[in-house]
């Protein structure tokens, strides 16, 4: 039974409208700062604020640190689970999904309770924030890496490297990380997009990140926050487009990995 094409188009257009009307309205609104004409005045004002650059810079730095830690944590874990502990996979998957189940507010208070008092005080440094971001990135990073690992015959590649004299460190560095390039990039960009826009952690732990900055100017000004949100949205979108683009380029290489042709 085929549905009538008119209905397919109806739902498609409805979806597009649902998705784009808020965006277009935000854009339209952000251009109306000066009365009676469309200008980029709101953007000019946004770019003039030194706190824009500061908060953006902070978030950028923390995003990079988060990505590095997340990679070093997730890749060896997922690799080991795939290779030696396939039975542990459901448990690891469950743990990585926790950020979807536990609200960010609860997670933050957990962090404050855990790291806000001796023996380990981290809440005075951005470390607690980064710990939170790593947890937040887990579902995206783990899933990307895991699907990448499954696409490659990781066991045989590992054994081949071992028989050539490689140790675990070399195998991870020279074989596993490079074979997972596309999967890693998608994990990296998703994490990047999340950290750049994150609000709850940064706000509750009171760090001057990009998310709270948008929120703050949102409370005080009318036009600039629209411009900034739109830019933040473009960062996310840009990341997704990059994943798609890089993924297409390297797909040929990844398909060939699966052993016998």
């Amino acid at each position, binding site marked *: 039974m085929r549905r009538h094409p008119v209905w397919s188009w109806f739902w498609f257009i409805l979806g597009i409208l649902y998705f784009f009307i808020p965006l277009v309205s935000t854009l339209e609104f952000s251009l109306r700062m000066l009365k009676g004409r469309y200008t980029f005045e709101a953007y000019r004002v946004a770019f003039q604020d030194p706190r824009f650059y500061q908060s953006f810079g902070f978030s950028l730095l923390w995003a990079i640190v988060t990505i590095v830690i997340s990679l070093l944590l997730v890749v060896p874990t997922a690799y080991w689970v795939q290779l030696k502990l396939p039975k542990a996979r459901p448990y690891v998957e469950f743990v990585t999904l926790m950020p979807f189940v536990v609200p960010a507010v609860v997670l933050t208070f957990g962090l404050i309770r855990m790291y806000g008092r001796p023996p380990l005080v981290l809440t005075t440094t951005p470390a607690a924030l980064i710990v939170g971001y790593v947890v937040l990135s887990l579902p995206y990073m783990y899933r990307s890496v895991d699907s990448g690992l499954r696409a490659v*015959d990781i066991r*045989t590649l590992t*054994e*081949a490297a071992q*028989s050539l*004299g490689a140790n675990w460190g070399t195998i991870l560095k020279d074989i596993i990380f490079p074979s997972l390039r596309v999967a890693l990039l998608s994990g990296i960009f998703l994490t990047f997009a999340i950290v750049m826009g994150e609000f709850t952690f940064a706000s509750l732990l009171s760090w001057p990140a990009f998310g709270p900055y948008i929120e703050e100017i949102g409370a005080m000004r009318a036009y600039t926050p629209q411009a900034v949100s739109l830019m933040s949205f473009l960062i996310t979108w840009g990341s997704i487009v990059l994943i798609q683009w890089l993924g297409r380029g390297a797909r040929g*290489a990844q398909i060939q*990995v699966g*052993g*016998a042709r």
Partner: protein
Amino acid sequence: MAFLDINHASKTFAGTPAVRDFDLHVEKGELVSFLGPSGCGKTTTLRMVAGFEVPNEGTIVLDGHDITNKAPSQRDVGMVFQAYALFPNMTVGDNVGFGLKIAKKPKEQIAARVKEMLGLIRMPDLGDRYPYQLSGGQQQRVALARALAIAPQVLLLDEPLSALDAKIRVELRYEIRRIQRQLKITTIYVTHDQEEALTLSDRVVVMSAGEIEQIGSPFEIYNYPATAFVASFVGTLNQLRCRVVDAASGKLALGGQQFTTTALVKTAAAEVLVMLRPEELHMGVRAGDNSLTGKVESVAFLGSVVRVHLKLGESVVTLDALNERKLVLPKVGEDLTVSFPPHGCWVLAGA
């Protein structure tokens, strides 16, 4: 003590024995193949030599050193896998040189060795390609070169040709043997393909259900199988239930027709199983040979061989005749007399 000793090795996976009391001694420069159906323990045994599995019992001694518990990376053993397992992110040259890079050999030395290896596998100009740009056969050649580049003491091949097309498979089979002979490298070759095992090996180890059935040269394995399993697994075989007429003189009967065998019939039973290779049978009568007459059931022309199925009483006998241009093919339904020498068959008691 041989070059590579596998001394009474056993391996159990979660209570299920995979290999039992595997005892084999491989001489330097020898190519030994492990032949058997899937699940017979041949790959597990190979993986114990490679170090990917540790035997529960027994030892593995290479060139006088006990390597039973050594890590795979410390064994000086080269391995080629069924799935090629080339590193997808590296060029052919980098793949071949990987083991030397790990061993921290100087750059010039690696480059020279890679060049030498690519020459050995007859792919001198493809060093800059990536694995996905190569055919399956080429990939497996590169995998072979990579395993050999580190000049291992033992080369292990785990069903290296199973993933390839029939034609490439035969071609590469000879290529592997040529290279192995040239380098005089001690090699273990795991396969489920009897033709591969017979053509390649100095010695064949036939395995079934985790145990060695027989160790011998291809000629011995084929013509003098030690067990019923070896007899039926290697080659095509007629297994004929025959009545014992006179055990002392080797007189037997098949479907009412008598014949003699020089094989010992040491049983008091009324019936025995007679094993007869299809190529021992000839069409027509030959002086001094046994002859039997049956009805032709089917005639299959296979090219170099003509395969005839003959109904003899209750049994169906397969005959292979070599093709020649003047050969007269028997017709289905007609009677055909076939002959075989008394020494052409062997007898299993307890049938």
